[in-house]
């Protein structure tokens, strides 16, 4: 389906709506638009990045109060208070985000509840904000001499901003930054090892969501022309989260849909229930809660994913390869020392996973680390790729110490890895997964992505990703969700993603596991090709046959210690190695 089709339809309906609707219905639509803008931020924050916030209502309130106070007490124009409200809310969000976003897992939502409540009490207790009675007499917005005083006039402005914000978020998700944001949910280690600064990214989208809330708050203040603490309490914060989840927190249009469903449901219950049960009017929350539970039982991902499943899927076109290639880095001179590991050790509590391992690796070499299960191969890998720091010893890469580096810093030097347990984003397309690998070779940020100013660079990224997928033989599966491919193919995607990062040293964690015979041969040929182009490869592998025919040298680990080193032939006849693999005769 053309992604612009529903947008076009929605816009047409929205343009025509005021002609047919009553004043009251327009007011409702305005509320839906205002809530949609806030819920959009939550789609980004919660649905996409997995950061739960109950506190968005407080941000709406900060912006609404800012504009209310500045316009009523200092006679500022609403158009001047908008930037002030945005800056103030943004600053607050940065401060709160710096503290709260360090919290992980279930601490985060509780943290947001805490500051949500705190800010609400602030609204109710500050003299300048009119305490619990609020601020009245807020002027309306004047647009080029046109007074947007009534709901009908403001309607167009509200929905213009709602649609604009939706498109911006949609653009953002379909970009370099968007891929990084999606990796924040459950894929932090992987994202870091491709150079994504996940901590910074979290703050950025927290700010983005807060600014959307601020925009909504500013509109709210000049729509109602009166603010009081009540609409910015914890319950409203919960409602916004409800909207995002019910609409489908993974999809942009879920925000608008969720806001519509919840607003209309509440209104409908208010009208209907006293009619059905005249004796008491307290069933509203009961029925409301019931409907929410029922909704989630039927469509736990929300309504939008449910709807998209019903729609026919239309493939996007292949990205064009006729664009300039992304910049490549200079490979080090062949034959020099690339990686030098000196007495590296890693212990987890009493477990010595790697102890005093030393070896050197030349550039343009393929080196294999083998060993029985639990020999410390993957830990060694994590030390080199910066996922874990060493306990003692040193590791240098091109004469630079890397043993205390993070995965992100290692990625900048050109150390790129694959994962033993496939670490792909299963709902994202194969192409997008590989495109994530090129993160460090491109630079467009969140703002450029939202405004679609980065299309030229995006095309180059996509071309690079498609090229790498062609190389590993998956050029015909570009737009399939990565999770739908067989495990062997997923391992190849991991390699393609690593290649998209233009590595100097490629670390492959069991690349041949799950591959069939012919696929292994193709992989071996690919790795040989890569070596010829100057890439050095360090791999961990179980498959002896694969290793023996391919690599230049082998390091054998057992119980965290190096027990042998040499050419494949030397190692194969080494008694200590045979002992480790087949079990010694006591």
């Amino acid at each position, binding site marked *: 389906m053309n992604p612009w089709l529903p947008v076009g339809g929605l816009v047409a309906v929205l343009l025509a709506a005021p002609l047919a609707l009553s004043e009251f219905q327009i007011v409702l639509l305005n509320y839906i638009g205002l809530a949609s803008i806030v819920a959009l931020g939550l789609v980004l924050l919660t649905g996409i990045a997995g950061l739960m916030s109950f506190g968005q209502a407080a941000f709406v309130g900060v912006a609404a109060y800012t504009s209310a106070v500045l316009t009523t007490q200092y006679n500022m124009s609403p158009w001047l208070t908008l930037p002030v409200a945005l800056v103030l809310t943004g600053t607050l969000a940065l401060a709160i985000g710096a503290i709260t976003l360090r919290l992980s897992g279930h601490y985060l939502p*509780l943290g947001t509840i805490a500051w949500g409540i*705190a800010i609400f009490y602030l609204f109710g207790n500050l003299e300048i904000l009119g305490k619990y009675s609020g601020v009245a007499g807020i002027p309306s917005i004047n647009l080029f001499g046109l007074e947007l005083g009534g709901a009908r006039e403001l309607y167009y402005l509200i929905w213009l901003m709602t649609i604009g914000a939706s498109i911006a978020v949609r653009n953002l998700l379909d970009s370099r930054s968007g891929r990084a944001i999606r990796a924040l949910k*459950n894929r*932090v280690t992987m994202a870091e090892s491709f150079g994504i600064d996940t901590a910074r990214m979290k703050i950025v989208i927290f700010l983005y969501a807060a600014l959307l809330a601020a925009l909504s708050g500013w509109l709210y203040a000049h729509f109602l022309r009166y603010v009081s603490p009540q609409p910015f309490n914890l319950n409203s914060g919960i409602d916004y989260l*409800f909207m995002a989840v019910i609409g489908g927190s993974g999809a942009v249009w879920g925000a608008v849909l969720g806001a519509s469903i919840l607003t209309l449901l509440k209104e409908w219950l208010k009208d209907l229930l006293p009619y059905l049960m005249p004796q008491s009017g307290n069933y509203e929350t009961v029925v*409301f809660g019931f409907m929410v*539970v029922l909704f989630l*039982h039927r469509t736990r991902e929300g309504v939008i994913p449910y709807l998209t499943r019903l729609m026919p899927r239309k493939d996007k076109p292949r990205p064009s390869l006729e664009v300039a290639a992304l910049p490549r880095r200079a490979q080090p001179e062949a034959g020099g020392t690339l990686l030098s590991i000196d007495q590296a050790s890693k212990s987890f509590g009493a477990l010595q996973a790697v102890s005093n391992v030393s070896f050197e690796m030349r550039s343009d070499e393929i080196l294999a680390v083998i060993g029985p299960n639990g020999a410390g191969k993957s830990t060694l890998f994590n030390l080199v790729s910066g996922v874990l720091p060493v306990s003692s010893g040193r590791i240098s890469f091109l004469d630079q110490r890397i043993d205390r580096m993070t995965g992100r810093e290692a990625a900048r030097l050109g150390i790129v890895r694959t994962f033993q347990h496939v670490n792909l984003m*299963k709902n994202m397309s194969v192409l997008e997964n590989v495109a994530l690998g090129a993160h460090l070779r491109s630079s467009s940020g969140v703002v450029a992505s939202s405004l679609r100013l980065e299309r030229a660079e995006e095309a180059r990224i996509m071309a690079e990703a498609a090229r790498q997928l062609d190389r590993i033989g998956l050029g015909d599966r570009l737009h399939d969700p990565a999770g739908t491919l067989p495990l062997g193919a997923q391992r190849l995607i991991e390699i393609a993603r690593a290649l998209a990062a233009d590595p100097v040293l490629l670390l492959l964690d069991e690349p041949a596991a799950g591959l069939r015979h012919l696929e292994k041969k193709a992989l071996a040929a690919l790795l040989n090709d890569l070596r010829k182009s100057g890439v050095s490869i360090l791999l961990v592998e179980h498959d002896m046959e694969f290793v023996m025919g391919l690599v230049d040298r082998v390091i054998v680990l057992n119980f965290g210690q190096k027990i042998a080193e040499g050419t494949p032939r030397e190692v194969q006849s080494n008694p200590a190695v045979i002992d480790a693999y087949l079990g010694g005769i006591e």
Partner: protein
Amino acid sequence: MNLSLALWLTQDAVVNGAVYALLALALIVVYTVTRVIFVPQGEFISFAALSLATLQNGKVPGTVHLLIATGLVVAVLDGWRMAKTRDFSRLPRLVLFNIALPLAVAALAWWSASRPTDVWLQVLVTLGIVIPFGSMIYRLAYQPLASASILVLLIVSVAVHYMMVGLGLVFFGGEGLRASIFPGFNFDVGILTISLQSIGIVLSSVVLMVVLWLYFGYTVYGKALRATAMNRIGSRLVGISTEFSGKLSFTLAALIGAISGILIAPITTVYYDTGFLIALKGFVGAIIGGMGSYPIAAVGSLLVGFLESYSSFWASSFKESIIFTLIIPVLLWRSLGKHRIEEEEEE
């Protein structure tokens, strides 16, 4: 502030802290076993306290009707499932727990309402009303979503909380009620006056915690719950059903909620929405324990009790905001002390 006032505030803190510790325990059990952050835990408290007070006023509380209705819904849903699979082996259990038991409780409640002085009967009926809700709520709201994300489960919790608070308002009205269990009896220790009620609360909390500790450590069912908490798939492979563990943990939560409700009913006026705030403070305690450690959560709950009691003395109108703002440093400390890379949830 003089010594006797400090001692009095301390007593207040310990009593409240003991209740919060119980709730923290319930929240942790439910969270570790089912990944549900059980926001409606507090409603068990309100339901229990208000049902008890209503019985003492000689009336049958509305929660009894809710119990019968909820039981019927569960029976119909599960009966339908049985009819589809043609497996009726569990039908007697189903009828016993979801139809016979609520009816028996209703009969007892009706009898008890005519005997306003029989405190032990009222306590028994209250437990009988509230405890079955645990497994029923799990069955209706959470079981169909057992594999959903923590976020979806949390949203369901908030929705269930809305429903239960709404129903509480319908059944008990906006007026607060207070029950009396034992005749007021105070004794003096030095300059401090200690009430029997507060001794009862602290003692009951300690006893309940010891019982739960024995239960988790030495019984098959307790161990099954611990196994599920540690590894859901692994315990399913050895034959512990997710459904069973879920219902059991929710029943425990309801039991703890009911007992807490009965304990606080005599010392404070309970409104239909009182439970939520109490449970939220238990939640703070649970969070201090990292949603995993019972002893640290108990200490954390005591800390919340102290914070509350002393801040209500110095700045009573800011009591709630002080408690909720001060947890941010605690949260920070917890999340800094944690291992950097979290277990990554599958999509």
